[in-house]
């Protein structure tokens, strides 16, 4: 197992985290936490796989998975934006609901094989670069390249366009944004739904490209929650979020790869000879997420940067915020 291949596998798996985290980033920039990412990903994975299987066209599956993710996010939007329910609880409810619905609709699908697949490409010229080429630009799913494009586009959108300015205003100072004539409710709904669509895309990426097939409750372990953590690590910026996504996915992948060889650098591999010790390897990604959050928190405390100021607070026209 070469390092390039390990990185390539990490990038593929990291694309799932990337889509979900960028979606959450958009919603949180608008001031709405959506902890239902995992639920929306489950539904996206199920819908993408099932529609892909029935139509034979993975792209139709992806489109419907995004619609399904957006529809679930709309539910969260109604409950938390208009009915002013606690965003954290509403998101938790969405995770329960989405996971349950996906398991109900996916009953019996686990034996359906891998279904429709997405094409895999190598980029001419770029794939010839030593180390970087094989890791990032060789035999990657088309969705991985979509991920490469999404990050600069999202970053440009948020920081260099007028709608992006409105988005940040709504997340930081909704009352001031409202006074300037920005429709706070409309902006929040738009980005919450867009975030849900990206979570749906993340789900479909898993079931159509990364681990093709429907694996019931084993489709995702913690990816939706890790995506939420990556937004915090990324300080609500797409670029940093992407680095986190690939890093966590790479370490998760490494934990799997380290269990295979009989010896490492000429030494007996304890994870090969004593199976139970592999459970410690499997703890690595979760420990890494905690570590990454500690690093991010220390940096945030030092530089006095933080979440969008209105994150988690419902906006009520004509009332002072809490």
């Amino acid at each position, binding site marked *: 197992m070469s390092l390039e291949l390990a990185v390539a596998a990490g990038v593929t798996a990291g694309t799932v985290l990337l889509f979900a985290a960028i979606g959450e980033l958009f919603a949180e920039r608008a001031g709405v936490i959506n902890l239902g990412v995992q*639920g929306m990903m489950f539904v996206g994975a199920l819908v993408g796989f099932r529609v892909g299987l029935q139509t034979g066209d993975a792209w139709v599956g992806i489109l419907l998975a995004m619609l399904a993710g957006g529809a679930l996010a709309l539910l969260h939007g109604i409950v938390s934006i208009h009915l002013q329910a606690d965003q954290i609880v509403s998101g938790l409810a969405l995770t329960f609901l989405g996971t349950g619905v996906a398991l109900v609709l996916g009953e019996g699908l686990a034996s359906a094989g891998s279904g429709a697949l997405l094409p895999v490409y190598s980029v001419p010229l770029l794939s010839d670069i030593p180390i970087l080429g094989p890791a990032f630009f060789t035999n990657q799913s088309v969705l991985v390249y979509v991920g490469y494009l999404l990050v600069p586009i999202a970053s440009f959108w948020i920081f260099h366009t007028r709608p992006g300015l409105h988005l940040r205003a709504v997340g930081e100072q909704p009352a001031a944004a409202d006074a300037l004539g920005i429709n706070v409710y409309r902006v929040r709904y738009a980005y919450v739904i867009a975030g849900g669509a990206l979570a749906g895309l993340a789900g479909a990426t898993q079931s159509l490209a990364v681990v093709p097939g429907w694996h019931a409750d084993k489709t995702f372990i913690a990816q939706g929650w890790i995506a939420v953590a990556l937004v915090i690590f990324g300080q609500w910026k797409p670029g940093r979020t992407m680095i986190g996504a690939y890093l966590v996915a790479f370490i998760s992948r490494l934990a799997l790869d380290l269990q295979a060889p009989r010896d490492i650098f000429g030494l007996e591999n304890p994870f090969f000879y004593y199976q139970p010790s592999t459970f410690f390897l499997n703890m690595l990604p979760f420990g890494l997420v905690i570590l990454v959050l500690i690093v991010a*928190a220390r940096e945030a405390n030092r530089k006095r940067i933080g979440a969008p100021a209105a994150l988690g607070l419902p906006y009520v026209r004509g009332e002072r915020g809490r």
Partner: protein
Amino acid sequence: MPRRHLLPVRIVAERRLEAPRGLGLLTTLGGIVVALVISGVLIAVIGGDPIGSYAHILRASLGSSGVLSDTLVKATPLIFTGLASSIAFRMRLWNIGTEGQLLMGAWGASAVVLFGLLPAGTSPFITLPLMMLAGFGVGALWAGVAGWLKARLNVNEIITTLMLFWIAQRWIQYWVFGPWSEGGFQMSPRFPREAWLPRLTDFASAVPDLGGLTVHLGFVLALVAAGLIWFLLSRTRKGYEIRLIGDNPRAARYAGIDIGRNIILVMLISGGLAGLAGASEISGVVHRLQDNFSPGYGFTGIIVAFLARFNPIGVVVAGIAFGALILAGREIQPAGIPAMIQGIILFCVIASDVFLRYRVRLEAR
């Protein structure tokens, strides 16, 4: 041209200054009814029989003294985890990973038995309290890590408690696949009798009617815990601080309350309660440590806490109701239905809160 409207009536919402007494219970019950109707429609849409399913749940959970006892067995860990969530959520401290603290509590209680620290035949009056204490302590420490990170560095406790859950799951797997494995199976050896919490059926030789009733002492412990948490929250200075931080952290800070200390303290109590859920479950029901012994008692405890509006006495009622759902839900197919119903109930209950904040009425146009 006059504006045309979709509805002949207008929905008017006025902010309430204070919700009338008892309205909270009413809206919660209303939310549950709406949730059950929505779930029923969904079950019918996927080709199931909603009335039959609900009737089955009632019959299979409350239909006889035997199944009622089984319901209380399932309710026991839910009351503990519901209390664990309630005390944390009351302070708006989001300990979502009670499932992990439950697992670590079960590990702590198992360690008392499986490390062989106590000689064989030790009195249960020594063994059982030690197991419960270890369960509380290890669960408390596990949550305490997240509490300390939150208090000192402001690290998001939702993520850390959840990550610690997945780590705890693998920790349990290591012990039951490795050092504590019985003959290569994924479970520890069975505990000796002195490590079993007494069950009603254990007294069947004296009172024959109790035969087969598996409800155990853990249920009584859960009720005691509910009483203690109620007292702590509503009758002590500490409880007042916790409630004030939850309602208005800024006011609490101006009042000189040390928020960081309270975060750590509440996390320790919350994790300890969740740890007791795990300890009482393996000592009272499973009688050994094994992988997957909890069907998500920690996560369901979150919903129990919200249904009870963080009221410890309400947690007992909601815990029994969800114990019934978990007991009867085992046989309902497809397997995702109980999770789906739980999600819908939670959605409807928090959505119905709008009636607590607003007086909503319809006006003719």
